[in-house]
């Protein structure tokens, strides 16, 4: 039997008319990162809150480190750490005072509290700023301190709710590095994100959540495989649209998908690079010069589109990711 540090079993939770969680079941193996991916309002925070004992589910059960979070919330709290959606640190305390406070509340032996706070401050590269009030910290530093606060009690299981939302690209990279290191030390992590590249980059297993349901689950490659092989994007000017459409539909053997916003046709690259050559030759013969031409593996964006019928960007603006420059992903690991 494989060891699961987090288990959700048919969790349902509503707020009035809104069903925030509509029967979510999942299981996270010890020592891995689970990425819960979904747009705003999908139910991510609600699931985290149920699993961290903040909310009682209407039905279903949750287990953290084998402990029933509904039946034994206090016991479960000893095994979990939470970094919520906002950096829940005290502005008027210093970084060190924040961590010592949390260490005391985890009931670490008094002698250990100071030492542990220093250790953790160093760990998140805040040892220089540790004795300054948090009100002087940047957004990235607050987030790191918030993460640190969840580590002070050495919990086995960490819940991170949108740990990088609102961070600049560099702070985001630092946060990713930190999360990866934690897992190397044996922690189990569940994190939520609206960023497709973040889930791809960090998570061993990704659950896609929408309207309170887990609509798909798998590794990044599993999810991409659902879309089949590689994809060719051809951006053209409005004048060339009909001409290019005819050529690409001919090559694909089915109608080429058109995106009105980016003025881009998308077809599957059935024969990989050979299909690309065919496209180039076909467009050339028709006298069409494409604005942009790219062969790429399907992104998680494409996966989301195919699973929900809309892009995640309908609801969120994603930093540094637009339709025209799709970075090659899935190679970072």
């Amino acid at each position, binding site marked *: 039997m494989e060891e699961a540090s987090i288990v959700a079993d048919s969790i349902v939770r509503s707020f009035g008319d809104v069903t925030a969680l509509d029967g979510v079941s999942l299981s996270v193996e010890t020592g891995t990162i689970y990425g819960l991916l979904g747009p705003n309002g999908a139910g991510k925070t609600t699931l985290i809150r149920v699993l961290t004992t903040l*909310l009682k589910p209407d039905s279903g059960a949750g287990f953290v480190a084998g402990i029933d979070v509904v039946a034994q919330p206090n016991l479960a709290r000893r095994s979990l750490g*939470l970094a919520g959606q906002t950096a*829940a640190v005290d502005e*008027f305390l210093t970084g060190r005072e924040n961590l010592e*406070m949390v260490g*005391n*509340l985890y009931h670490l032996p008094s002698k250990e509290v100071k030492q542990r706070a220093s250790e953790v401050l160093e760990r998140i590269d805040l040892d220089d700023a540790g004795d300054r009030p948090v009100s002087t910290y940047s957004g990235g530093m607050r987030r790191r301190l918030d993460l640190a606060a969840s580590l002070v009690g050495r919990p086995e299981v960490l819940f991170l709710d949108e740990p990088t939302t609102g961070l600049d690209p560099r702070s985001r990279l630092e946060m990713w590095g930190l999360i990866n290191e934690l897992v190397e030390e044996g922690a189990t992590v569940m994190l939520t994100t609206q960023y497709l590249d973040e889930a791809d980059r960090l998570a061993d297993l990704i659950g896609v959540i929408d309207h309170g349901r887990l609509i798909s689950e798998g590794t990044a490659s599993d999810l991409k495989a659902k879309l089949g092989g590689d994809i060719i994007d051809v951006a053209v000017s409005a004048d060339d649209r009909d001409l290019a459409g005819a050529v690409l539909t001919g090559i694909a053997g089915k109608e080429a998908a058109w995106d009105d916003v980016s003025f881009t046709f998308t077809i599957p690259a059935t024969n990989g690079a050979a299909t690309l050559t065919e496209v180039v030759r076909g467009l050339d013969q028709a006298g069409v010069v494409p604005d942009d031409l790219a062969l790429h593996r399907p992104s998680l964006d494409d996966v989301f589109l195919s699973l929900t019928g809309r892009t995640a960007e309908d609801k969120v603006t994603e930093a540094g990711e637009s339709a025209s420059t799709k970075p090659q992903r899935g190679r970072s690991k």
Partner: protein
Amino acid sequence: MTTQTRSISQDVTNQMRDTTVMIKRNLLRIIRLPQLLFFSSVQPIIFLLLFTFVFGGAITRGTDISYIDFLLPGVLVQTAVFGSTQTAIGLTEDLAAGVIDRFRSLPMARSAVLAGRTTADLVRNAAVTVIMLTVGTIIGYRIGGTVIEAALGVVIALLFGFSVSWAMASLGLWVKNAETAQTASFVLIFPLVFASSIFVPPASMPSWLQGFAANQPVSVVASTVRALMGGLPIGSRILESAMWIAAILAVFFPLGVYLYRRAVST
């Protein structure tokens, strides 16, 4: 048996430790927001000076003691009650910042967050009271009985403020929003503070108001504190005040903890 005893004593130790940690946190917050501390001390002093010098001459007291001697003990009660609104506002701020979510995810005692907040507010109130007594003495206030009686009066005013802090904690956790908490608390507190025996004897009020003004808790406590600090006949007032304080705590301690256990930021 021994294991159980040990775990209960462990629980008590942890509970005390959690509460101490939370008191310290909230006191640091008070000390490090010096402007808030400054203005929350200045406000009651303004009240004291305004009522003494602006209204004092016009207010017919129907009492034999000087107006400042009549007024100051009541203003101590008013200060304690107004100060308790800080409890509600502070909790809504913690809720909005996600701090309450963090505390609730920790294996800490359930009452510690509220006990820490209300106790810190009690300490702040005590400090403000010392300032008030100093200013009062400068402008002519004198106690009428023994120092011990006067001290008991001050303690009763502070304990009453502490009990109202628990009511305000419940209000804050219920409305969850700082502005709403501020407005709602003043809507509740103003009638209690002004339709009371703090500024004028209820006998000077219209008859339909007298019954309420003479018997509502703020008046009962203000009369008790005034009698103790002025060396006046006390009757059963200490007992009545103690019963109000106990009753408010008996309702709002469990209600506050109940609301805390279910509170999530929105």
